[in-house]
């Protein structure tokens, strides 16, 4: 009797603590959702509402008097499109360069019997611990003639050492027997890489493409340093002028029937949405690759 009562009592107490945890966990989950989404909802609501309501500050999280004039104005802005195009070019060309250089260096570094593997790897990892700093790099970019070209944000960042190590770790996991048998069939290392190793490495290639592409899409600092010419700059630098320095005139006086002061604030919100949209739309579909990338990196780290 006593025994049963005791365990009963215990069962009740346990479920009590279980419920508390469930409540706390739900609360944390909802809090995370709200905290993350509210700023975006506000930006969206601001960008699609009636400009006069926006300037009277009547918009919070839900749009009122839906109106896409701000977007129309952004779309008509020449400088915005020039800079947006530059970003697309930098993302495409830059990622190609990244992948090519990362893969061709990671493969030799994954061959355990390669006699230069250790010294070169030391040379590479040392750069993660010490760098010459900003100013010497600035001078190199000037001396190599990259200054004020779009290559200045591509070539100096052609390999991310962390990504290189992730890629090498992946290559090391490919069975040696596959490589050896291809070699016996008379294939040289270049052929082995491109026709045996790479087809087996689609997972890691996807991860690398995503990491590099997002980094290019979001990067602004190298462009601010190395590309003073406005029509070569990526869209992030354009955003700095519009959002942070307030120096770019997005709208001309009287355009679309509104006074400039009325719409200039709203344009900021529309520009944010237009630049965030590609990443935000693609991301949910690609999420699993991103997470995979973190995992592969974590095993090594």
């Amino acid at each position, binding site marked *: 009797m006593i025994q049963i009562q005791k365990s009963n009592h215990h069962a009740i107490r346990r479920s009590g603590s279980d419920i508390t945890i469930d409540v706390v966990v739900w609360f944390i989950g909802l809090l995370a959702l709200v905290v993350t989404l509210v700023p975006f909802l506000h930006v969206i609501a601001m960008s699609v509402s009636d400009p006069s309501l926006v300037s009277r500050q009547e918009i919070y999280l839900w749009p009122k008097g839906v109106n896409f004039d701000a977007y129309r104005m952004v779309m008509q802005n020449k400088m915005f499109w020039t800079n947006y195009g530059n970003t697309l070019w930098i993302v495409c060309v830059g990622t190609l360069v990244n992948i090519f250089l990362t893969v061709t260096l990671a493969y030799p570094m994954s061959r355990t019997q*390669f006699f230069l593997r250790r010294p070169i790897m030391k040379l590479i990892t040392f750069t993660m611990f010490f760098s010459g700093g900003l100013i010497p790099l600035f001078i190199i970019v000037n001396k190599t003639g990259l200054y004020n070209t779009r290559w200045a944000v591509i070539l100096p960042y052609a390999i991310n050492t962390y990504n290189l190590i992730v890629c090498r770790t992946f290559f090391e996991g490919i069975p040696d027997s596959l490589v050896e048998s291809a070699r016996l069939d008379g294939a040289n290392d270049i052929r082995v890489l491109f026709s045996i190793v790479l087809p087996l490495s689609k997972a890691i290639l996807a991860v690398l493409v995503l990491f590099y592409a997002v980094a290019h899409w979001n990067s602004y600092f190298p462009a601010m340093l190395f590309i003073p010419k406005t029509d070569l700059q990526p869209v992030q630098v354009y955003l700095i002028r519009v959002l942070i320095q307030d120096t770019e005139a997005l709208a001309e006086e009287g355009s679309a029937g509104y006074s400039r002061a009325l719409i200039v604030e709203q344009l900021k919100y529309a520009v944010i949405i237009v630049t965030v949209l590609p990443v935000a739309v693609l991301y949910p579909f690609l999420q699993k690759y991103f997470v995979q990338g973190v995992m592969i990196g974590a095993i090594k780290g």
Partner: protein
Amino acid sequence: MNNPLTARRPSVWRKCLQAKYLILLMLPGLIYYLVFHYAPMYGVLMAFKNYKGGTTIWNAPWVGLKWFQEFFESYYFGRLLSNTLIISLLNLVFSFPIPILFALALHEMRSRSFKRVVQTVSYLPHFISVVVIVGMLKAMLSPTDGVINNLIRASGGNAINFFGTADYFRPLYIGSDVWQSFGWNSIIYLAALTSADPALYEAARIDGANRWQQIVHVSIPCILPTIIILLIMQLGRTMSVGYEKIILMYEPATYEVADVISTYVYRRGILKGQFSFSTAVGLFNSVINLVLLVAVNALSRRVSDVSMW
């Protein structure tokens, strides 16, 4: 005839010849590291010279430790160092533990679909650029037409110039950092949690542990190694705070709390063109960074057998 010098040479050559395709493959990447990493290291010589452009770095006159002395004696030295350390410390106190708590909470979620939604949404800010984050902050906190000041005025307060007030800089910097990274940084802990042996939880349940006790006695010990490694790596990054965001956020009015070594190097070197002086300041930062990393790595090897090299 058979002296070691002539005997060794052909063997290295033969090795190279044997590995010629591997060498060919790694050549572009190697050139990249030499040009964009090792050549700048040579450029560090500027810190000991008076280089003003025009000539080569080698031909510029030596000045010894003049620039270092100037920096150490300047009013800025103490301010920059303490700002760098304070921002790093705040990161450690706020940005570091929150993803751990968040991962533990995610792990306890029973509804798989809710968990997936929370994960997907909370990872998203990681993919937004710092420019957009700071831009959103500036727009929403604007003293004239930002929504926050709008609410403050509606409730009878006076508008606050958030970005122009030194007291608000650090909360804004750290707060937006937590907002951007808490979800993404929880992935690694969540991975450690999901790979935990289910038998451990089973055993804990049989022993009568409730869920809270399971968290404390199974989940936390399970991610403790990960926490230690990441903590050590974080310590190694003490000197490299996120200056790309600070450059966008700070204003002359907030320099006293916001200016860190890297932003100072940027202003003096790039904007004012004082190459030698700012290279010296940057070198000071790099050297401390290197010392920290080596120390932290030794520590890591001792406590967890994990090291970065």
